[in-house]
């Protein structure tokens, strides 16, 4: 299942970066594309704004076929305080921009990618393609909520993958 999670994350990060390369975040001094997986980062009580934060929440495994079908719920949270130059009065527009980026990234064809194994991947070592594809349904956008000057929204998307023989 970790391979499917990693594959989906890398795919989404890449698509979002293509749509808006300026959306970045500095994590421990390194500038990275503005898409993170919360469980892969140091725990923090703070909320990073103007980036997409993925959390893997629901999980279902269907064992009726020869390959178990795993359905994972990915919760994508994003928030914005608006820009300081506008006094935060553009936070609605900035949230709408993030809505559009996420919708475009998840809505673009194909809605599937080959599953990759990143276990051995590193500098100069590419990820290893596996035998099945990771695919996903359309995202569901929750209501925007206002917390003081901050606008937040959570979108959920069901991500599917088959557990291949020997894969954990």
């Amino acid at each position: 299942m970790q391979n499917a999670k990693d594959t989906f994350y890398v795919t989404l990060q890449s698509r979002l970066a293509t749509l808006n390369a300026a959306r970045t975040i500095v994590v421990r001094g390194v500038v990275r594309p503005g898409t993170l997986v919360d469980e892969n980062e140091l725990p923090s009580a703070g909320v990073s704004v103007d980036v997409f934060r993925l959390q893997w929440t629901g999980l279902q495994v269907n064992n009726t076929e020869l390959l178990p079908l795993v359905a994972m719920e990915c919760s994508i949270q994003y928030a914005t305080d608006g820009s300081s130059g506008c006094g935060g009065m553009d936070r609605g527009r900035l949230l709408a921009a993030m809505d559009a980026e996420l919708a475009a990234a998840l809505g673009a064809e194909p809605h599937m990618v080959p599953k990759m194994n990143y276990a051995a991947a590193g500098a100069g070592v590419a990820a290893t393609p596996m035998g099945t594809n990771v695919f996903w349904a359309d995202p569901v956008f929750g209501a925007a909520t206002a917390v003081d000057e901050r606008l937040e929204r959570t979108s959920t998307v069901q991500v599917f993958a088959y557990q291949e023989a020997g894969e954990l």
Partner: protein
Amino acid sequence: MASVAPVTRRVRAYFAPVNRSAGVPTLFDAAQLGRFDLHAPPAPWVDLGWVSGFTRKCGTKVDALLAGAPAMTVGQVRTEVEATVSLAFETWGKLQMTLASGSQQTNLLTTAAGATPNGSGGVAAAPVPLLTGTGPASTATSLNVGAAAAAGFSVGSLVAVDVDYTGQLGYVGTGISSAYVQTANAVGGDINYVRRVTLNVGVVVAITAGVLELASALPAGVPAAGMQVSQLVGFCDREGASFFQEWSGLFVMPGAQGDRVLVHYPRLQAMQGSTETEEALAAPLESIRLAGAFRSLPVKDANDGETVLCFRSYLPAVLRGV
């Protein structure tokens, strides 16, 4: 790798014309073309986009042959073979309306001044000839009508391009048979009749030096000599009439693992009149979809001479068990 059931989001529909005069459908060979790019089907297949509510029904009846006492089933026989398809198109366009209409699908030609009202449009305004020998030759995407005539068009104009009706009988419509004329009297000898029913329509996106540039190529390709251009305001179909639309159909279900299910009906005839389905958005808003239902007519499979109604092909994903 073990095989799994195909998982697909939706079905994509493609249609191709049947040569009605010769009774020859457009056959789809999945062995040669099964992996085609879904967004660029091989000619003459036309991509009609995704459809919803795609339902295939098998009406084939298999009866038992009984013999002996007590009677026992000693064999089976197919007493009736039928296949039908129903779906809803997710877009409205000339071809989608044609397929969903069941009968002739007419173009609402711009009427002549003072024309008597008629349900499918009054007497049409005079058509505009395509120029030859002056300026560039017309192509499938550009129509040279000359500067004077071009002044009567504007960006966004809908146009129909086809030959004049001069008394021809039988199937009419260049490239695609769109109606059947039994007698010249039935169509009132109207020179615009073929343009009234033709599928050779386009949208003007630019006008340059007397040339109408179209958004996409005319289905019948480069206009033939003698064709004229009529403006239209929309499309009209009718419940009733005598004509049956017949098309070759191909429906593709792309699987999430790279597998693909293709269902090919060489001859589909409309089996219902024009109807719509509604999909609620948020009260009181509804999205109206064109509903189509088709009955498959038989063809002979050249490989074994069997008479069949449709072909279902499955292309497995790479390295899957079979």
